[in-house]
Structures are given as structure tokens and as C-alpha cells.
């Protein structure tokens, strides 16, 4: 039961509220005497729409004051029971609730002689408009992406998925930030234990603030500390979220973050995009295999090159081997050192391009890629074939953005392994990586599914893109790939 600490005296209530909020400067209090009753509208600067406040609240109040008929009830009772004012309206009985509503963009009315307030939804804070997806662009799909306002994001999903089974729950997390978290799932498809687990974790979250997806991820991702990959995907695309919700996944959105988490996700999903479902299956399958190849190249190509050149040169044809040999002879460092140096340099450039303003970012790639690369080869620090290898690797890594973080680290591990022990080292690394990925089993869903454990029907959608006729006959559902009970 909520503690009632709103005083009958308006002055006392306003003073208590102000004191509770550390006399914060952004508190706007508009007081007046309407029909003989002192009343105050409290709001937070920049959080409410002043236009709506004037039009929907202050104007009706002024008109009421100007009219000769005095309400039979107390003014606040009259306002809450006999007038519409705003669509979102709630009675509140404590100053804590008042503060919560105020900081969520509500205006709160208090009146002399009543120990409750009336919160009116008049949100009008500045927010970024819905723009095109930047991290997951598509050619033939929706161009909308999530914004920072969770309610806007909810509407973006609801607009696409009008099913009555889609449930959106608003929860709070963060002891100080009191962040709105939206939990979305299809009631008939999402496993109830996954929903319960997420809710439990959220309710037990003791973090002061929840400002990024990363702050909540470790609490629901069981393989978080033990694997380089993550069983929780993140997307800024409402259409992708709808597609995953329809499969029975649970999505979590955090207010202030323009991304939604998909719980759980699969390894194979890193290689599919919404565009695949707009193209014909043959092209989607072709482009998917290009992505698989790119993933392989981005992880293993430099390591493979080092391993083959250093330990198994018989793989190259004589002409190529001689060219490589001549190029490497001219450089002062061992091949493995050269590759690591170049890969680290590439990561520096990528990070610089990412952090700098876009206008300067392109300059970084010109300076880094063209000028330094060319100079490095001409001065004999690195060989030209190696620059080609690094260039291919870098380009391939741009094809699969969802896995770029693990790939950046794994690539270095593979280079070291290839440099130390050739193909033997790479094989050992591959075995460890495979075992590591196979061990990911968040929420009883194998991350390697449908390849391991083998699900022939699901595997079709990994090898090629199923046709819509096939989707008609069998929709992919999370329950199809879940292994028994949660352990």
C-alpha cells in the first residue's frame, strides 16, 4: 500500500515536494485560486508540452474560474471525476509517486484541502525523430529504426504487429535512474519461463542506473562470462523485432536506448538480414553464403595466410610462392609480427573512424588506408601481398556487423595460433571455438541451433532461405528448437 504523505495544505505539499527534490531548479509550479480553491500545477521544465498544458489544463481551469457556476464538489474531485483533461490521468497519493510521474513527463495538480494529486500525461520532452537505421541498413525493407523514447519504440512495434497476443509490459529498473523497461512477447509463443526469468532478474537488479543494453545483458545471458559470442542479439529495426517476437522470442527495450534486445538469439541469425526476405530465395541463399564466407575470412584469413606461408608453403603454386617470398624477403619483421601490427593498425583506424565526427571519419580512412598503407609498403615495413590479405579481411569483417566484436579478437588469436603452430594451431583454435559456441545454451536454446543439435527443417533456413510457401506450412518457432526443460 502506497504511503500517503500529501498534506491537506497546498503550501505544505509544494514545500515538501520541493524539499524532496532537493529544491531542483527545473520544477515549474503554477499556482492560482480557481473557484475559491487554491490549486497548483507542477511540472518539470522541458518534460511536458507547454502547449498541451495550456490548452488541455490551464485553459479549462481558467474557463471554469470565469464561469459563474461553481462546481458542487471540491475542485480537484470535480477535475478528476467530471472532466477529461488528458487521456492519461492517474490519482496519486504520495510525493514519491508524484516525483516519478513528474520525471516521466507528467504534470501534477495539487489542491488545498485534498491529500491526493492528479497526474496528467502531457509528455513533451525533446526526442530524436524516427530515422533510418544506421547500423542495420536495408535496401528494400522499412527504413525506420528505434529512437531513444521507449514509448515511441513500442508504437513502432505495435504498428507492425497488431496481434492481440502481443503483450508489452512496462517495468522499472535502476535504483536511481528508475528507467522504464519494456518487455515484449507473444503470450502464446514466448516460453513463460523465459519471461519469468527476465522479470525476476529485472526486479532483483541492484544497479543504480540502466543506461545501455550492456548493463542488463550480463544478468540474463548465462554464457556472458564464458563465451566471446553473445546469446542476446541487439537490433534497432522494428521489423526485425516483430519477426523475432512472432517466433516466440522475448524482446527487451530500455528507455533511452534506441536498440532492443532479443532473448535468446542464434549464431546463424548473425548472417541473415531483413533484406533476405525481400529478395528471391536463390539470391538470399547466395548472399547468405557470401556472409558465411566473409565471416570465415574475417576470422581466419590472416591466420591462415600466416600458417600457410610459414608452415605449409607447398600449398601455394610456385609462381605465387616466389612472389610471396620475394615480397617477404624485403621486410624486416617476421610475417606474424607484420600481420598483427597491421591488424592492430586497422582496429585503430576503425575506432578512430567510429569516434570522430562523420565528416572527419572519411579523412581517417583516406589517411590510414591509402597514405599510410602505400607508404608502409614502399618503405618496406610490410609486404604488398600482406596488405591485400589485411584489406580483404577488413572488408569481409564489414559484412557481418553483429559479430564484429568477437571477430576482432578471434582474428588476433587465430593469427597467433597460425604463427606459432601453422594449421595445427588453427585446428586447435577452431576446436576450442566450436566447443565454446556449442556450450552456449541460454534458456535451453542451443546457440548453434539448428546445426547442433541437428534440426533438418530449421537447417534449410540456414543453408538457403526458405520460400514463403514453406513458411506458410511451417512457421519457425522457438519451441521447436528448445531442448527439454531448462537446466
Amino acid at each position: 500500500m502506497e504511503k500517503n504523505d500529501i498534506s491537506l495544505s497546498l503550501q505544505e505539499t509544494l514545500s515538501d515536494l520541493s524539499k524532496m527534490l532537493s529544491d531542483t531548479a527545473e520544477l515549474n509550479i503554477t499556482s492560482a485560486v480557481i473557484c475559491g480553491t487554491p490549486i497548483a500545477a507542477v511540472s518539470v521544465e522541458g518534460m511536458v508540452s507547454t502547449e498541451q498544458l495550456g490548452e488541455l489544463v490551464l485553459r479549462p481551469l481558467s474557463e471554469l474560474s470565469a464561469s459563474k457556476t461553481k462546481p458542487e464538489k471540491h475542485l480537484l474531485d470535480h477535475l478528476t471525476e467530471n472532466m477529461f483533461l488528458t487521456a492519461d490521468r492517474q490519482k496519486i497519493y504520495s510525493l514519491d509517486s508524484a516525483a516519478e510521474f513528474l520525471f516521466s513527463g507528467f504534470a501534477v495538480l495539487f489542491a488545498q484541502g485534498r491529500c491526493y494529486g492528479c497526474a496528467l500525461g502531457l509528455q513533451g520532452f525533446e526526442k530524436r525523430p524516427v530515422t533510418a537505421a544506421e547500423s542495420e541498413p536495408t535496401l528494400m525493407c522499412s527504413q525506420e529504426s528505434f529512437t531513444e523514447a521507449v514509448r515511441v519504440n513500442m508504437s513502432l512495434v505495435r504498428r507492425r504487429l497488431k496481434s492481440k497476443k502481443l503483450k508489452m509490459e512496462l517495468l522499472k529498473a535502476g535504483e536511481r535512474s528508475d528507467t522504464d523497461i519494456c518487455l515484449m512477447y507473444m503470450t502464446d509463443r514466448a516460453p513463460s519461463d523465459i519471461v519469468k526469468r527476465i522479470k525476476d532478474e529485472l526486479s532483483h537488479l541492484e544497479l543504480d542506473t540502466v543506461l545501455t543494453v550492456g548493463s542488463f545483458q550480463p544478468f540474463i545471458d548465462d554464457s556472458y562470462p564464458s563465451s566471446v559470442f553473445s546469446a542476446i542479439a541487439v537490433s534497432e529495426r522494428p521489423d526485425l523485432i516483430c519477426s523475432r517476437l512472432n517466433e516466440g522470442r522475448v524482446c527487451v527495450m530500455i528507455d533511452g536506448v534506441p536498440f532492443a534486445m532479443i532473448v535468446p538469439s542464434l549464431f546463424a541469425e548473425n548472417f541473415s538480414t531483413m533484406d533476405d526476405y525481400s529478395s528471391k530465395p536463390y539470391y538470399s541463399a547466395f548472399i547468405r553464403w557470401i556472409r558465411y564466407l566473409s565471416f570465415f575470412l574475417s576470422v581466419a584469413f590472416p591466420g591462415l595466410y600466416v600458417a600457410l606461408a610459414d608452415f605449409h608453403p607447398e600449398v601455394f603454386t610456385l609462381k605465387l610462392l616466389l612472389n610471396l617470398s620475394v615480397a617477404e624477403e624485403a621486410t624486416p619483421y617476421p610475417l606474424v609480427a607484420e600481420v598483427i601490427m597491421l591488424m592492430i593498425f586497422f582496429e585503430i583506424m576503425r575506432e578512430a573512424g567510429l569516434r570522430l565526427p562523420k565528416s572527419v571519419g572519411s579523412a581517417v580512412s583516406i589517411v590510414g588506408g591509402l597514405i599510410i598503407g602505400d607508404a608502409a609498403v614502399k618503405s618496406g615495413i610490410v609486404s604488398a601481398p600482406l596488405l591485400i590479405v589485411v584489406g580483404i579481411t577488413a572488408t569481409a569483417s564489414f559484412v557481418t556487423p553483429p559479430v564484429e566484436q568477437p571477430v576482432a579478437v578471434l582474428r588476433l588469436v587465430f593469427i597467433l595460433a597460425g604463427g606459432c603452430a601453422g594449421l595445427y594451431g588453427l585446428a586447435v583454435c577452431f576446436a576450442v571455438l566450436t566447443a565454446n559456441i556449442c556450450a552456449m545454451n541460454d534458456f535451453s536454446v542451443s546457440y548453434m541451433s539448428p546445426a547442433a543439435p541437428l534440426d533438418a527443417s530449421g537447417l534449410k533456413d540456414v543453408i538457403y532461405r526458405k520460400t514463403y510457401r514453406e513458411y506458410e506450412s511451417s512457421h519457425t518457432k522457438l519451441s521447436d528448437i528448445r531442448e527439454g526443460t531448462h537446466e
Partner: protein
Amino acid sequence: MNRISQLQLFAVMLCGHAFSLMTFFPYTFDNPSEYMIGVLISTFIEIFLAVPAVIIYKRFEGRDPCSLAGDSSRALKITAGIFYTFVFFYFAYRVTGNFVYFLDSVLSGYFPRALVVVSVCATAVYLGLMKPSVIGKTSGIMLALFALFTVLVIGSSFSSTGSGFLSFHLASENISHGIGEAVKCELLRNLDMLFLLFFLPKLKGSPVRVSALYLGVKLIMVELSVGFVTVMLGDFAMISKLPFSSMASYSTSSMIERFDAAFMAVWVILAIVRLGAVFHCSSDCIQAVIPKADRTVSVVISAAIPAAAAVYKLTNYEWESTAYDMNGWLITVTALLFVPLMISAFVLLRERRSADVRGA
């Protein structure tokens, strides 16, 4: 997650056998044909070796031999635990030693043997620490990789077979002796059937299907592989180290011919999977003897003791005789047939006695 499916267990067992197959063909007989006949006969014998697993599954609701022995007495459980621990030590010792010894033919100049042992065992320990389903899933992926490479090498070598079919002959001083030796060799190389017994409590499905699938596919795989290698390499097949790599280097496809090292990589992965499964089962046995033993410690012990023994033999350059010594086939038969049957008999006897006491 803790349980292993039929296909996954099949993959674990077949990966193990594929490793043996890729390592070498035992050359204790005069020609490959004797070996192929021996494989066929040994497969029929192996059907009987699968019987105890089926009995345990049907009569005792799928228990591993050690925990089943515990139903009879604590002493029997410890005895069984010690016996199987040593069997798995022997298994791991052979796999580790063979792996390092034959790796020399492709990586000798670069890597000290001890370092190879440490690296491969450390990786296998990591896998051995995983749950059975993870070992199963990893094996499944590796098996797919092995199948892909095998199809590639066989496909690319097919046109270069020429008159190689003449290599199938039975010119031998003593055919029956040769076939007998081949049966023994194949039985020893089939220690992987122990996984059937030890993954039984965690198996989702029937051991009958797993063993039938395994024995069938194994027979086809071995016969086809030996056949192709024989066609390609003739009598040389039986003395070639890493016959798949040798076959690749004989390929008419210049791509496959150059990438024989890739087969070595697949072979390395299969070794890791096999060792991982061995360490996992071995740690189960250690825990049966010492119930308080930590999982990690028992897996590390399962790796360290056989690895140390293998390193000792390898550094003294005495491994070749061990690798080609096929007298250990009795261990396979004892561990798969006699001991489980004895344990089952003891447990049944005890159950009958208890029933008699209750009846009295």
C-alpha cells in the same frame, strides 16, 4: 542440456573411429584385402560387444557400469571404477601417443613433442569439462567437416584410380592368420564403443539404435576408405602414415593435392574430440572411485597421467612399437563385454537375494 541425443552419441563414437582411420592402417598383414575382410568380421563381433549396453539400458534403466556396480556393493563400485579408469587411461595414452607420433610426419621440425601433448590435452580437457551434449554437438560439427573433406578427397582422387583395382588381391602366406590379426586390430581400434556404456545414463534414446547406426556407418566408412586408399596407393596403403593426407597428395586436383595439410587439420580436430570424450568418461570413473573428487581435477588427472606416460615413451623414441602393437584388443572385449556382464550378474544376484529375504 545434460543429456546427449542418439545422433550426438553416434557422432562422438564415429569421430573417434574416424581419427583411428585417418591415423594409420595397421600393417600386420600382407595386403589391404585381408584388413577389409577383418573389418567385416570384427563388426559382427562388435554387435555382441554392444549387448551389455543394451541389457543395462533395458534391465537397469540406463546406468553406467560404475554406478550400476554400486547397487551391488561399494567395493564392486570402486573395483569397477578403478578398472575403467585404467581402461580410459590406456585409451587416452594410445590416442595421445599416436597423435603426437604421427603428427611428426607433418609438423616435426617446428614443435617439441611435449608441447604438442600439452596443447592437445589442454584443448581436450576444455572439451572434456563440458556437458555431454556439448561434446556431442561439437562432434557433430567435426563429423560433418570430416565427411566434407572425405568426399572432397575421394571425389578428386577418383579419376586417378586407373588400374588400381588390381591392388585388391589376397596374395598372402597365411590368409586366415592375416584376417585374424585384422579382426584383433579392428577390435582394439574400436574402444570408442566404451562411450556407449558411459554416456548411457545421459542418453536420450535407445542404445540399440545408436550402436546399429554406429556399426553400420563405421563399417561402410572403413571399407570405403580402405578401398579407396588401396586403389590409390596399392599395398603402400598399409604402411602410409595419415593415409587420408597421402591420398590427398595423390589427387589429380591440384587444389586438393596441395591442401593435404588441411586433412591434417581435420585429423587434429578429431583427435581433440576423441580425447575430450575420453577425459569426460574417465573423470566419471574417477568420481565413482573418489566421489568427492572435483570435476575439473578429475578431468585434469584423466589427461595428465596418460599424457605423461605417452610423453615418456615418445621422448624415448619407443612409440612406433606401441602404435602398431595391437595386442590390446582383449582390453576392448573385457571392458565392453565381460566386465559389464559380470557387474549386471552381481547386481541381479543381489536383487534376487534381497527379494528372497523379503519373501522369507
